[in-house]
Structures are given as C-alpha cells and as structure tokens.
C-alpha cells in the first residue's frame, strides 16, 4: 500500500545573517539518504535506529511536512505529493502522524477537548455533539479516563505521558489509513504502554492501517511490528521480519543495537565492552 522509493532529504545549513561571515561555507546535513521501503495494509513496519539517524525526518517526509530533496512515495499507487497537492484535506484524512515531542506538539492555547477534536473540525465535521462524542471515545481508548477530568485541561497541566496520549488520540481520531508513529509511547509507563501498543496494533489489524512505527524501544518492537527496518546515518541498513532481524542481525550496527537492550530481568547479567569516558577530568 505504501511504497517509498529513494527518499532523500538534505538540509542546507541555515542561511542566517551569520552565513555572511567569512569561513562559513555551505554545509549540508544529509538527514535521509535514499530510503526505500514498502508497507502493506494492516502491516506495521518498525523503524529503529540511532538518534539523529533520520527517522523523524523520514516520518515527516511521508506525511508531507517536508518536501523531499528527491525520491517519491506512493499510496495505493498514486503519488502522494500529487495527491496532497490535489486535495490536502483528503490526503491528511488518510495520512496521520504521532509526534515525537509531546511538549511542543500541543498548542498551549487549547484544551484537551479542542486538541483532540480539532482534526475532525478541520476535516469538515460540523456536528459539535458528534465531535464531543468521538473525543470522549478516543480519550478512553488511550487511557485518559475519566475523560471529564482531562477535557478542560491545557497541555501544561498534563504530565509527559498524558500529553503523549493526547497526541495519539489526536492522530487516531481521524481513522487514518497510514500512520506514522514517532516514539508514541516513550513517556508512558509500562502498564499503559502495553495498552497503547496493543491499541495501535489492533487498529492496524482491524482497520487495515499501514503503520510506520518509529522507536528506540526494541522491547516493544516485537509486540507491535511485523517487520523491522534499521536506520543508520540516513540509510536503511537492514530490513526483515522482526524475529529474523532480532535473532540473526546481519548488519553490525543492528548487532550493537540488540546487544544494548537492557534487560528487565533482575537476574540477568549482561556482559558488555567497557565504554571509555572521554574528556572529563
């Protein structure tokens, strides 16, 4: 359903006043470098990788928040850039994203009710009662119950995890067909985390949503993802079914990654090479 080809994004170094100063050449950050993958309906692709490796950028490219330097993405065979240009509203009804940073992604002026209900409003739903009903329903789904005690709150009155759930609620209220989830549960405690993860997986299965699940948390990857892509410095270095990648990583970076997973078993002992502490004296 989702077909990504050679997606590339380079950021030019900011052309501020300072760029006029001598000795400041034009630098380019190669955030994403020729990324290709495909996700089927109802499938969850895990995107794992080093911080700064370009995962979020990839996600932002897919939902149309950034214009790719080159490359393309197709949804059901139609070019997404063209689809977005044609009808933004329709495009975004299908394509949603949960943002990595729940602190910045919520408009401080709005209440939870606004925040979650706005997407419907923007999609042209005029029936306020219907909106209110949907809002309550998705809040319950993401575990913000009782909904009444959250509806009137502003983001700054929420804890990190609560904000993250608001972000999720907002993304799923539109029932998209393609969802980019950028670290959706990083701030959630284990008990709610699994609820959410299950919810996402269920949505993918039941509604046939194609999902790109961006995370560092390899522990949840197994529970959510069908396939896994490992990203390193803007490129995808390895892809495959989760079990296969986890059990027999081919890429050296993947191996390091898996070795670094901490264990929740108090009795397990991990043997790791010592890390050099540099620079501090």
């Amino acid at each position, binding site marked *: 359903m989702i077909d990504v080809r050679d997606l590339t994004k380079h950021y030019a170094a900011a052309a501020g006043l300072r760029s006029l100063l001598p000795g400041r050449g034009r630098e380019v950050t190669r955030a994403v470098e020729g990324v290709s993958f495909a996700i089927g309906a109802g499938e969850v692709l895990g995107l794992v990788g080093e911080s700064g490796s370009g995962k979020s950028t990839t996600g932002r490219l897919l939902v149309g928040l950034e214009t790719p330097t080159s490359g393309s993405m197709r949804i059901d065979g139609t070019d997404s850039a063209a689809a977005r240009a044609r009808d933004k*509203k329709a*495009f*975004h009804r299908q394509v949603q*994203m949960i943002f990595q940073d729940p602190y910045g992604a919520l408009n401080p002026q709005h209440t939870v009710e606004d925040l979650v209900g706005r997407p419907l*409003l*923007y999609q042209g739903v005029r029936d306020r009662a219907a909106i209110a009903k949907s809002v309550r329903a998705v809040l319950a789904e993401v575990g913000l119950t009782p909904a009444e005690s959250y509806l009137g709150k502003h983001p700054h009155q929420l804890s990190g995890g609560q904000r993250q759930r608001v972000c999720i609620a907002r993304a799923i209220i539109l029932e998209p067909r393609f969802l980019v989830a950028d670290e959706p549960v990083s701030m959630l405690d284990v008990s709610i985390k699994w609820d959410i993860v299950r919810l996402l997986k269920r949505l993918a299965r039941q509604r046939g949503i194609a999902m790109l699940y961006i995370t560092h948390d390899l522990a949840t990857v197994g529970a959510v993802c069908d396939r896994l892509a490992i990203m390193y410095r803007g490129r995808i270095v390895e892809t495959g079914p989760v079990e296969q990648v986890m059990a027999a990583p081919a890429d050296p970076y993947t191996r390091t990654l898996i070795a670094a997973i901490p264990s929740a078993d108090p009795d397990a002992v991990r043997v790791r090479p010592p890390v050099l502490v540099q620079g501090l004296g």
Partner: protein
Amino acid sequence: MPTIILDFFRAVWRGPFGPTGLVILGICLALAILGPAIAPYDPVARNYDAAGKLLRLASPSWQHWLGTTLLGRDVLSQMLVGARPALLVGGLTALGTVLIGVNIGLIAGYFGGRIDSFLMRLTDMFLGLPFLPFIIIVLSLTGRSLTTMVIAMTLVMWRSTARVVRAQVLSLREMPFIAAARITGASDLAIIYREIAPNIMPIALVSVAFALAWAIITEASIGFLGFGDPSVVSWGSIVYDAYASQMMYRAPWWVIPPGIAIMVLVSAVYFVGRAYEQVINPRLRTG
C-alpha cells in the same frame, strides 16, 4: 459567536481587573449613548449669571458641577456630550487597526514568500508615512468628518500591529503544534485563525489599548491644528480648547475632567485586556 462573547465576559469577569474595566467601559458606553440626553446644558451654549454677565471660567458650583469654560460653556455638559465622539473615534479606530493589522500580520507571517514580501513592503510604505501629517493630508483631501478621521487614523495605525504580529507569527509558525495541525488537513485559514491567532491575542489587545488612546488624543490634536470637525465636542477637543485658551493650569476644572476621562477609558480597556490575558494565556491561570 454569541457564546464566544458570553465566554469572553464570563472569563473576564474574574479578579479585580476585569469587572473594573468592564464597568468603566459600560459607563462610558452609557454616556456615549445617553450623554446628549442627560447633559444639563447645551454644551456650546454660553451661560450668563443673574446679572446677565457671561459666566466666564466659573469654578465648579451647584449650577455647573464642573465649572465653565472661557466662553461660559458648561464643562459637565461638554464632558457628557464628548463621550460619544471619543468612544466612536477611539473604538472604531482601535477596531480597524486591530482587524487590519492582525490579519495582515497573520497572513504575511504565515504564508511568507511573495505574499509576505508584498505585504511587508506595503507596510513599509505606510510606515514611512508620518503619523499626524498624513492624517492631515487625508482629511484635507476628503473633507473632515469623524468617519474620514477614523479611516485616516486606521490607515496609519495598523502598520505597527501588522509588523508586531508578523514577527510573532514567524516564530509561532515553526512550532511543532502547527505542523501537527497541518497534518490534520487543516486549511491555511484554519491554521491561521484557530491555531496561531489565539497565540497573538495578547499582542492584539495591547494594540487595542494603544490605538484607542492614540486615536482619542490624535482626534483632539487634529482639531487643534485646525483640521478637525469643529462642530464636534469631544473629550480631546475640550482639553485642547483649554490649551488654546492658555488655561491649562489656570482652570483645572476644565482640563482635569477630560484628561481623567481619557485616562480612565484607556485604562479600562487595558484592564479588560489584562483580565483577558488569563483566558488566552492558560499558564497564567491560578486557582
């Protein structure tokens, strides 16, 4: 819409500032409507004492609560009648200023590029117009009336609001929550007016209070320079009358009431703005 207005009042009706401001504004509004009806004297009629002598510069008394002017006019009546033009000019100009300024700022800041370039150069042009002289020119061109005065003042006042708002929008537009709104399929207008606009309300309110004060005072100074509509008695023109008669500090009863009235009116707007701050800036809310 009515619910929004109701919400506004409900929200502002908290704390000491909101009600104070609203009450003062209410009184001013009532004066603007009723002023001419309840004025005890004709504001431009000359008053004479029992002996038939002109009641020149009479200090406050039972007959004339706020005394009389150099030409024996009743200051209280002038104050009552003067509320309407002051409020009309001040209010309309503030409204126009904010409407134009905020919208241009929002649009320029949000869309950027050519639209921004064009709007900002337009703003530059208006910025380059000196305030008072330009108003004088417009008035000379179009004839003098409160309407043209409001239009002229709005023309030179929106520019600052526009620039300030645009600057704010420039940084707001980069906020992640705008990206978040964008991918819900929100139209540009929805993003501008529903996501960004609430965040610039505090600035808009400062502009309102400021434009109001300037408009009232400018209306008076234009009159003073001889370009105003002389048949209109307004709070501003009362002060200028006293000034032109060199009675600034010789007849306090004449100068102080209009001065205080303008001050109180402007402060009231500011009070409401201040109370409203809590509504639009949720972080300020306590308890």
